[in-house]
Every structure is written in structure tokens, then in C-alpha cells.
């Protein structure tokens, strides 16, 4: 018999898990790039990797305090955005796509190589950087919560910090998109030449947008590694594609879209894989092994991306008039 309670409670936990928060924040950054400015950034995984490694390396190798480690990660991603943006922001959109995807892979390969093993831990990655963050925890030790949402003090601390960051940056995004700056970048998305004709420096605005969204991705990368270890294999191109799936699901040019999209994505994914794993165990699908059941969800994510883009390009919350891809 299938343990429905376990499936539902596992799925419900994803609603507020730090991973969901990290993906929501990364998708919010991508919403600035792709949804509002029309930049095809396929290197969000690279920005997240910089956050994770920037934080972990400066804590482990140089003994930096938390605030300095965060600054190192953010600084690294600003430099990364400048390096990406300078050659490509003048070119057509798909060039940025190819360069960002290549740059994110370069970062992953550099973090994976044995050459810098002492710093990056090569393929096995890094751990043991959580002490400084845990020391800041004001919650007294113990177990809190109800039902499926029962966690210890550290787990609550990650969740509170993660979701607070998501809320702060969602508000910030809402404010800047309403501002004159936001109107210019939306104008760039609709018609770059028209904005240029108004005397705006399009190149500079695009660069600011790339840096800002990249910093969101970097902070998301830090939240992402707080409940787990830093492993280079997590920063493959598919990470960027999953964030795109979340963004398109919620709506590319929206504030709530990436956040709710992330929740829906993770709850459904957890529900589906929990159900499939148990159904296979119970012998409901005799033609399928446990491993195959685990792969099925990735097939579904791929199909979902295609269907959303074709049939509901504005996503759940989007406005059809405000489509990221007009051209």
C-alpha cells in the first residue's frame, strides 16, 4: 500500500525549503535579465556557482567572517557579469546565450579540475563552511514547528534567512521596475533602437541589468549551499534550464511568478517523484525500475518547458501583452 501521508508531507516541505527559496531568488534574477530586459542569460548556474564557491572558499581558505564572504561572492559575480557583458551586450541576443552558457561551463570546469584542488576540493567539492552562519543563529537549540514542518534551530535559521532574502529582493525588484530605470529596461526589451533614439545608453542599462540579476543569482547560490555541500556537478547547464522552467512557469515578466513558480515546481516534482518511487515499489508499474522512475520527472520537466512556451508563453501570472520574447 502506498504511504500517501509521506508523499504529501514530503511535497509540502518543499513549499518552504531553502532549495525552493534559492531557486526562487535565482529565477527572480533571471526575470530581471530575461523577463524585463530581454537578455538571454544561460549562465545563471555560473552566477550561483560563484556565490557558493566565493562564500565557501573565502570562509575555508581565508577565514573570512560571514559578511566578508558574502561580499567576496557578490564581487566575483559583478566581475563575471562585466566580463560576459563587455563582448556580447552589443551583439544579437543569441550570442549572449552562447557566451553565457560557455562561461558558466568554464567556471564549472575550473572548479572541477584537480589543478586547484587545494582551493576548490575539485570534483568532491567543499564542506565545513557553515560554522560562521550557524553562530549568527539567534534561535535557541531545539525542535520547533508542527506537522511536516518540524525542524531544528539551524534548519529554521536557513529557511528564515532564505525566505527573508527572497521577500526583500522581490520588493526591491518591484520598486526598481516601477522606477524610471525599470521603464527604460522594459523599453530595451520591446525596442532597443527606439530607446537608443531617446538618447539612452542602452549598452550601459543592459550591463546594469546583467550585474543586478547576476547578484541575485549569486545570493541564491549561497542559500543553495547552506543546507548541503558545495559540489561542482550541481552547477551544470541543466541547473540554468530548470531555473528557466520555473521562470516560464510563473511568468517571465512578473515579480510573484518566479517565487510561486519555484514553489509549484518543487512541490510537484517532489510529489511526482515520491509517488513514482512508491508506486514502482508497490509494483504498479512492473515495466519500470526505481532508477527509471527517478528519470521520468526530468522528461516531464523538458516536456513542460516546451508546452508552456508554445501554449502559455506568459506563464501563470504573466500578462500576454508583456511578453519577454517579442522578436
Amino acid at each position, binding site marked *: 500500500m502506498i504511504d500517501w501521508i509521506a508523499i504529501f508531507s514530503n511535497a509540502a516541505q518543499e513549499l518552504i525549503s531553502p532549495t525552493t527559496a534559492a531557486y526562487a531568488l535565482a529565477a527572480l534574477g533571471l526575470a530581471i535579465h530575461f523577463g524585463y530586459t530581454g537578455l538571454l542569460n544561460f549562465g545563471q548556474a555560473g552566477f550561483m556557482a560563484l556565490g557558493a564557491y566565493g562564500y565557501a572558499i573565502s570562509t575555508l581558505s581565508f577565514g573570512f567572517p560571514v559578511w566578508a564572504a558574502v561580499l567576496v561572492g557578490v564581487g566575483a559575480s559583478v566581475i563575471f557579469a562585466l566580463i560576459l557583458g563587455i563582448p556580447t551586450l552589443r551583439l544579437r541576443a543569441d550570442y549572449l546565450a552562447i*557566451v553565457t552558457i560557455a562561461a558558466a561551463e568554464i567556471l564549472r570546469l*575550473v572548479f572541477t579540475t584537480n589543478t586547484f584542488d587545494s582551493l576548490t576540493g575539485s570534483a568532491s567539492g567543499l564542506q565545513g563552511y557553515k560554522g560562521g552562519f550557524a553562530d549568527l543563529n539567534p534561535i535557541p537549540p531545539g525542535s520547533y514547528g508542527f506537522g511536516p514542518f518540524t525542524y531544528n534551530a539551524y534548519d529554521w535559521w536557513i529557511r528564515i534567512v532564505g525566505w527573508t532574502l527572497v521577500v526583500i529582493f522581490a520588493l526591491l525588484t518591484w520598486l526598481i521596475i516601477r522606477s524610471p530605470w525599470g521603464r527604460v529596461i522594459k523599453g530595451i526589451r520591446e525596442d532597443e533602437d527606439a530607446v537608443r533614439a531617446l538618447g539612452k545608453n542602452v549598452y550601459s542599462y543592459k550591463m546594469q541589468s546583467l550585474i543586478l540579476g547576476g547578484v541575485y543569482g549569486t545570493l541564491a547560490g549561497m542559500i543553495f549551499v547552506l543546507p548541503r555541500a558545495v559540489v561542482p556537478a550541481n552547477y551544470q547547464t541543466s541547473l540554468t534550464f530548470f531555473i528557466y522552467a520555473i521562470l516560464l512557469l510563473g511568468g517571465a515578466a512578473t515579480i510573484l511568478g518566479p517565487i510561486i513558480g519555484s514553489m509549484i515546481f518543487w512541490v510537484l516534482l517532489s510529489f511526482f517523484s515520491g509517488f513514482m518511487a512508491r508506486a514502482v515499489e508497490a509494483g504498479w508499474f512492473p515495466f519500470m525500475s526505481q*532508477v527509471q522512475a*527517478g528519470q*521520468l520527472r526530468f522528461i516531464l*520537466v*523538458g516536456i513542460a*518547458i516546451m508546452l508552456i512556451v508554445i501554449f502559455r508563453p506568459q506563464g501563470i501570472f504573466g500578462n500576454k501583452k508583456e511578453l519577454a520574447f517579442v522578436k
Partner: protein
Amino acid sequence: MEPTQSVARRSRGRWLILLGILLSALTLSGIAASPAMAETGSAATEAEEEFEYFFVGNVTFDDKPLRGVQISVEGNGYEAETKTDAEGKWRLGVPEKGEYKLTLDEDTLPEGVVVAEGQNTVTSEFGLTKLKAVNFFLGEGQRVTTDISAQVLIRVINGLNFGLLLALAAIGLSLIFGTTGLSNFAHAEMITFGGLMVLTFGVDLALPIWLAIIIAIVLSGGLGWALDATIWKPLRRRGVALIPLMIVSIGLSLALRYTYQFFYGGSTRQLPGATIPSDIHLGPVTLSWIDVASMATSIVVLLAFAFFLLRTRIGKATRAVSDNPSLAAASGIDVDRVIRIVWVTGGALAGLSGILWAYFRPGVSWDMGFQILLLVFAAVTLGGLGTAFGALVGSIIVGLFIELSTLWLPSDMKYVGALIVLILVLLFRPQGILGRRERIG
């Protein structure tokens, strides 16, 4: 290359990790890394066949093979050992890419033979391919070194081989971009498809390999046609813009890739003849018949394709559509037909490229196409998006650069060099080597 004896030990921890991945389903990439351990292999030889990465070597002294020499591998939480066979050959599978320590047990050598001082333990790591040759130097003055010019020559030949197989895939990608404007991320899966089909027909159904390869190429062309007919043509009719099309191709790529993994599993399997010894000696270069056949096939197919583009009516029409679809349509060219032909030939070329890639790596796996997708994109961008001959030039540059860069870069970073060159080219000559300025808009 028969492994005579091999013993594999593995910690229980991996099984727990695998279970954790299945149940918690949180770590996205975990699945990609774990399937090699998914099947139970109680017998040692079976366990070895599941591995994706192999260290191989040949222990000889005075040109005579040494039998029964013990070689052991250790690293990344894994250890195993084997003995050389009657031909002095040995082979050790390891579960993951990484750095391993290989040790030759000096006590098992015949009397009077020693390993060169400090050489009985070698640290080695995998490069582009999943096969890594490890040599131990025996006896006094027995040490064989290749001088730098010979090394360059070897790398150039390898690079050409790799570049030519990249070109087969890149030309299709470039023509699809030229005629439809689509940056097709699912091209990676069209490459993988060729390898998988040879595996199905040549190994599982045990057809002769030449027949399996022909069937695979025909089916790859069929896949190109089917993708165009079921997905891309209807989307063009709907007037979907280029960037959504590109994202659709990303979704398609994910769905197809994991569908392959669903049916073929996560392990790497070898095509017939993929591990034959390299027994053609040309100066310092040793090649196998597979390498020679692979290069010859690429060159013949590329020449035939060039003839098709330059001399035949439909080839000229293809270049016309690639240049300017509206103008081509106005001059009476059936654009839809040309696009269909481009998809079919692009699919067939990608399939062939996948077969050659399966022999070059060597091995067929569900994500083999995705591993070189970025290099194919780099080649196309280097040559100039949308130009067939640019894609050829770009591919050969990428292939040569990757192989030659291992002279000064550690081998696990050789893709980094190629990708950095891609970014630099975009900085200084964004239209690519053979591209024209107006294309970048």
C-alpha cells in the same frame, strides 16, 4: 584485451547515497552521476563492465609481454586490482572520472626486471576520452620519452580526427540556423541518437556493424525529418518567434536526453571494435584502423556534402534560403522543401558524427552528445553562424585547439581553452571567421 583477473571492492556508503537520491529527490544532478551504480553486479567482471572509465596499459620488457604483473588502482574511495594477461595487457575500470593512483607491484615482475626508480606508483587522471593509457617504465634505460615535435604531431592527428567529427554535426547545426534561424539545442540528442542506434542494431540485435551503421544514419535522417514535421514546421506555421523556438529546443533536448537514459540506462557501452589496439605506426604516431576509417569517412562525407552544396540545384537552393529566405521564396524556391532537406541531412550528419564520437571517446552513453554540444556551438560561432564552410573551419580549429592545448593545460581543463577562445573571437570578430558583418545585426 581480456582482463584476466580483477577484484573490485566498494564501500557500502555508495548504496546509501543512491537510496538517498532516489527518495529525497532533491539533488538534481545526483541522478546523472549515480546510474552506473544502479545495477547489481555480483561477479567482479560484470561489475567492471559497468564502469565508464578505464585505465589501460601494456607491460612489456625488451618487447616481450610480461604476464601476471599485478596492477592496482586507488582513489576517490575506490580500489581494485588486476593482473596482466598473456599479452602483457591490463585494464581497470573505475566508477568515476577523477584522479587515481596506479601502482605496479614490483614483486610480481620476473627476476632481473625493475620499475624505473620512483615510477612504480603513477598518479593519473582522465582527459577527453574515457580510456586512459598508463605506462610503467621497466628496466634500466628502458624509459621511452616522446620528444616535443612528435607529441605535437600526435595531438595534431587526434585534433584533426576530433575536429572532422565535430564538423559533421556543426554543418547541420549551422544550416538549420541559416535556413530557419533556430539555435537548436536538441542537436546534441541527434548526435547521441546515431550512437544509440548503432548500439541497438549492432550490439543488441547483433547485425553486422556496417549494416547497423547504415541503418543508424538512415534513422538519424528520419529523426531529423520527424522533428521538423511534428514540432518545428507547425511552430513555424504558428509564427513562433526565434527565442521561444530556442527555448522549446532546450525543453526538447532535456526530454529526449532523459528519455534515452530511461531506455538505455546511465552506463557507457562499447560499440564492436571500439577497443581494438592501435597497430598502425606512422613515425611516432600510432593509430588504430578505427581512427583511420573515421577520418576517411569524415573527409569523404564532407567532400560529398560540399559538392552537394556547390554543384547541385537543391544545394544551391539551400544556400540561397540560408542567405535570404524571402528572396529565395520570391525566386521560386520551395523554402519548406529546402528546410525539410536540411533537417534530414542535418540529422543524418549528426547521427554519423555521433557514431564517430562513440568510437573516438570511446563508448556510447545517453548524454554523449550533450558533452560536445557546446564545442559544436563554439565551432559554428567561430566559423560564422549560418555558413556551412565556416562551420567546417571552426570545427577543425576547435578540434586542433583542444588537443594541442593539452601540451600546456591539464587535460581536465582542455575544454576551457576552447570556450575562452570562443569568447575572445566574439570580442574581436563577432561575425566569425567566414561570416559576414550584417549577420550579427
